[in-house]
């Protein structure tokens, strides 16, 4: 009975995602059509495939990544307010990436994603140390540690760029606000690889990971190797967060919003939420990014601002209603 509901949910969300992607590729500041591109118009093809489609694919991958990371953090921490942005994990990744960029090392191949990942892991470890007491994460401590980490990371980002040439200031803003304007196919390939590896890993442990929602002692009593599942789960969620931030800077609230929207419809365990989030996340972020591109075109809004505008009211209502 459960699998039928899951298949229906996956089908509905997949159709929604495809519709959003088609709309996103068709909409934009430049008026070009697929008919032109397919009939050999080189400019139309360049705009659609090289610029617009690559950006839509990167947006979809980042949406999927952040949603998967969010639902994983929420389950591991048994806390509905956990998300890579609020925990400071995105901030840690951006901080690492910004420091590398400020020192002019951004062009060293692979360095930005690796440092972003290190920053994400460092932030995850810090949250662990600060917010956990006696096997539980207290919501107040969780939010406080996220707040303080985010303040620390934005300070470091600002200092890094103050020391760097003035021309790099725009780049600093990009790390902090999140933007998909520079998205390329190479970003898409790197992100896609990371996303597939991390999600496959999470699927591999999902039958154990979902049991953590009932508490760690309870999971142990059901034969779950809790320490191993936590290590793998936090590791995978941190890696994909690092990869996402390296490509786009900090895009907030997607990891919080998507699992909750999914849960409003399907109140099931992690094994169901994981694929549903991996489909709903891209739909939300591609839609947000399209709004960012076309709302007051040709001026482009930062997509992080759009997701924040959506996310903040939602977060506040969640905070009010949480026990």
């Amino acid at each position, binding site marked *: *009975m*459960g*699998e039928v509901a899951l298949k229906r949910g996956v089908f509905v969300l997949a159709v929604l995602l495809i519709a959003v992607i088609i709309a996103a590729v068709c909409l934009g500041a430049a008026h070009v059509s697929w008919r032109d591109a397919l009939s050999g118009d080189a400019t139309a093809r360049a705009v659609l495939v090289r610029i617009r489609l690559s950006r839509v694919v990167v947006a979809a991958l980042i949406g999927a990544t952040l949603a998967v990371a969010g639902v994983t953090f*929420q*389950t591991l921490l*048994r*806390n*509905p307010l956990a998300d890579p942005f609020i925990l400071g994990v995105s901030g840690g990744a951006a901080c690492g990436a910004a420091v590398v960029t400020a020192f002019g090392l951004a062009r060293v191949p692979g360095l930005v994603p690796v440092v972003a990942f290190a920053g994400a892991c460092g932030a995850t470890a810090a949250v662990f140390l600060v917010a956990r007491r006696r096997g539980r994460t207290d919501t107040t401590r969780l939010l406080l540690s996220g707040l303080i980490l985010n303040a620390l990371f934005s300070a470091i980002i600002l200092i890094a760029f103050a020391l760097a040439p003035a021309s790099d200031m725009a780049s600093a803003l990009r790390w902090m606000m999140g933007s998909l304007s520079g998205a390329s196919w190479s970003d898409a390939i790197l992100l896609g690889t990371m996303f597939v590896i991390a999600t496959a890993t999470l*699927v*591999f442990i999902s*039958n154990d990971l*979902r*049991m953590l*929602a*009932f*508490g760690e*002692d*309870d999971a*142990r*009593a*059901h*034969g*779950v*190797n809790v320490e191993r599942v936590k290590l793998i789960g936090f590791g995978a969620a941190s890696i994909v967060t690092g990869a996402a931030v390296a490509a786009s800077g900090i895009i907030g609230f997607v990891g919080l919003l998507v699992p909750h929207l999914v*849960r409003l419809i399907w*109140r*099931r*365990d992690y*094994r169901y939420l994981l694929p549903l989030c991996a489909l709903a996340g891209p739909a939300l972020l591609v839609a947000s990014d399209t709004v960012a591109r076309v709302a007051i075109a040709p001026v482009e809004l930062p997509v992080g601002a759009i997701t924040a505008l959506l996310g903040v009211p939602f977060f506040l209502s969640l905070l009010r209603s949480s026990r």
Partner: protein
Amino acid sequence: MLRVENVSYAYGVAPPTRRRMHPDADAAESAAPHRGVNDVSLHVGDGGALIALAGPNGSGKSTLLKLIARVIAPQRGEVVLDDRNDWTAKEYARRVGYLPQETEDVFAMRAIDVVVSGRAPYLSRFAFESEEDYAEAEKALALCDASYLGARFLDEMSGGERKRVFLARVLAGAPRLILLDEPFAALDVAHVQQFSRLLRDIVDRTNSTVVFASHDLNWAAAYSDRMLVMRDGRIARDATPGEVMRTEVVRELFGFDARTIDGWLVPNLQR
């Protein structure tokens, strides 16, 4: 079935550096009553029984249950089930069920989905619960008089209803040994009676053994065949309720002034 042999477990043995930084902590630690369990041995035979684990707060009841459930590993001694101590975690979980004192359900699901998650030790890595697993879950809910709760969500239930759902979740795993930590806590008197009748029913129908911890000596005695009374991390008495619930025994074990009338403990209110 179960043998606990000279098992010890102490909490929060602080690392030496921290002790040096807080010289007072050492004194406080040695002055505090012993926490955890200390050199406990016990034997639980085959065949259904309802066993109460009684004793004051902090006497080691929860720790002993966690050790038997393999939620924590003993620092000394061993827990042996069916003459083996090399069970894999999943194998062990199929035989021994454990219900912690407080259950967590931040993301409230339907009761039936919660109950069927008790089948986890039987699932292979990528499997979802089958129709048979759901049938087991329905049976377990019925055994707990909670069939009507199946389609409801946990956050729409009273404390007593949730308790029964989580008991059904333990039963869904079909364990032969069921460990319940303070199952009567947070239940009113009527529900305590209902719940204890339920436990008796489960023992009779499934021939499993239930070990429940209770700080309330009266409930422990009223609903058990055998009482293990803990004090300062040790089992101070292993006897029938009738033997324990005598004025002089209670005075000796608990060190407080009380009388027992017809096997019920009554505080001594005369000054």
